[in-house]
């Protein structure tokens, strides 16, 4: 009775549901399929008028080895891990203590601090680009890892998200830890962080995705090829190949997309919940 009143479970409706969603899923996944498919083919087949999913003549090894040897693709991917790892570590080190102070401590300046966080949430990252570029130029840090990492060391979104989570942690837990002789700093890392693990993981994956895919800022501050992050690397690749050599290009695109897609599929549940959590203010 109850389920019937909530969802239309009629066979006709379910067929309609699967037909529409199936078509949608095909359209959403098609670019991925095309990408992988092209990365397996020789150029003759890529430009043949009829499209086949699998190659008649496998060219996967040549395309992928071209992708990794014509350009330092492995280096780009390594850079991606270095940059995203360093950024997330910095964000965690600054956001968690601040979120704890906002959620669990009484101090003068708390309202002001929270207001600053909310203000920060309103500012898109591209707005600060010109002044930060000038700043990095003056301290001589342009074209370094630091230039890519520094502006992202603070995540107001992370502070906001972790504060919301910490508010739900009972005060008794914090007080008990204090009675056990733990200092405030130890409480943050040994009590609050383990309790907030789901939120930390969600924040971590979001941070990874954003910073792995970030193109605007690295494009501005990086000139040296050996510092390129994955999206920059793909562009260097496309420019070097002049847009004609699609096989190796798609192989490079696949290699750069793969780490994130694998991470997403592995952490899908947390990830989608994490994104949802951000919507529930």
């Amino acid at each position: 009775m109850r389920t019937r009143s909530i969802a239309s479970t009629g066979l006709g409706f379910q067929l309609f549901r699967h037909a529409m969603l199936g078509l949608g899923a095909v359209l959403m996944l098609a670019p991925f399929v095309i990408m992988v498919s092209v990365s397996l083919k020789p150029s003759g087949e890529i430009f043949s008028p009829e499209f086949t999913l699998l190659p008649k003549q496998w060219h996967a090894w040549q395309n992928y080895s071209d992708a990794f040897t014509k350009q330092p693709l492995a280096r780009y991917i390594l850079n991606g891990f270095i940059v995203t790892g360093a950024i997330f570590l910095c964000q965690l080190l600054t956001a968690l203590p601040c979120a704890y102070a906002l959620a669990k401590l009484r101090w003068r300046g708390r309202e002001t601090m929270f207001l600053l966080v909310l203000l920060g949430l309103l500012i898109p990252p591209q707005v600060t680009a010109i002044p930060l570029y000038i700043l990095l130029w003056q301290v001589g840090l342009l074209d370094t890892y630091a230039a890519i990492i520094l502006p992202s060391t603070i995540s107001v979104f992370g502070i906001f998200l972790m504060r919301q989570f910490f508010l739900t942690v009972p005060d008794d837990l914090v007080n008990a830890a204090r009675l056990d002789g733990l200092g405030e700093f130890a409480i943050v890392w040994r009590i609050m962080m383990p309790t907030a693990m789901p939120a930390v993981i969600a924040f971590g994956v979001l941070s990874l995705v954003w910073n792995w895919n970030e193109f605007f800022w690295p494009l501005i501050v990086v000139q040296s090829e050996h510092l390129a992050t994955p999206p920059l690397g793909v562009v260097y690749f496309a420019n070097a190949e002049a847009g004609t050599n699609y096989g190796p290009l798609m192989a490079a695109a696949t290699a750069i997309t793969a780490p994130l897609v694998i991470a997403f599929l592995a952490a899908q549940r947390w990830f989608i919940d994490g994104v949802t959590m951000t919507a529930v203010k």
Partner: protein
Amino acid sequence: MSDLALSSPLTLPITRKARAGEVAEQLAAWVLAGPAFALIWIMLLGPTVAVFLLSFTDWTFGMPEIGWAGLDNYREMIGDEVFWKTLRNTLTYVAFVVPLSVFLGLAAAILIEAGEGLRGFYRAAFFLPVVSTLLAMALVFQFAFHPTVGAINQTLSLFGIPTTDWLKNPDTALFALGVIGIWQAIGLSMVLFIAGLKAIPKDLYEAAAVDGADGAFERFRRVTWPMLGPAMLFVVTITAIRAFQVFDTVQVLTDGGPNKATNVLLFQMYQEGFSFLRSAYAAALTVVFLGFVLLVTVIQVRLQDKNTHYG
């Protein structure tokens, strides 16, 4: 009397300790929040103030001196045809991408939640574009938009629909980029709508059924749609702000062309600021960009306030 005598030596040290604790708490809070406080000013709020001030100067990158220029940059902007074209392009892009990605995301969310089968698969399939590297996928779309071997034209000509070189045709280039934007935005709006749907109390549907609202459409019109109001507002805001930020696809696929047909605000800012090194003028463009994003947020907050009177 004896009670008082007993209690005072006990309570006194405690209150004293509490006071000491208060100071310690203040201190601890500042130590814990201090780094974040400093970084928010250095990396976010300070630069935002700086960009605003810079927009009133005549500074070009690398010059030794800064001169006050008042509203000159804004005046130049208003007199510049390219700026107006850029603005029109940006608004057209937002007006194209936002309604479609919100509507398709909502449709996907409702259909996915209306049954059990393959729920996880559909969610993952629609969400995958959100986590993929837009830049790599932009190159895939470039291939798909290819005039002769591209999948899009091949499919269209199958149905006898006229084809064109979508990214090179000034009439279609902006919309071709919009299609990529929609493809990437649907997943996020779907996930947010799923969260909104889950928050609707189930007994509302039962109440509606008692009132005789039996059909799927009636249930949607009388319960789902009104209850989704806040989620809808949030999704539209997020999608609009992200659409205003379109840059990657423009930079890589069209370079603002053909004939400035895909020149959008952020791309214009990037070119002026980092190719032509006209920092002050680029700062003024940034202020306009920030103005639009804040406007969208203010509208959302206003409507949200209005909505809560009914909710």
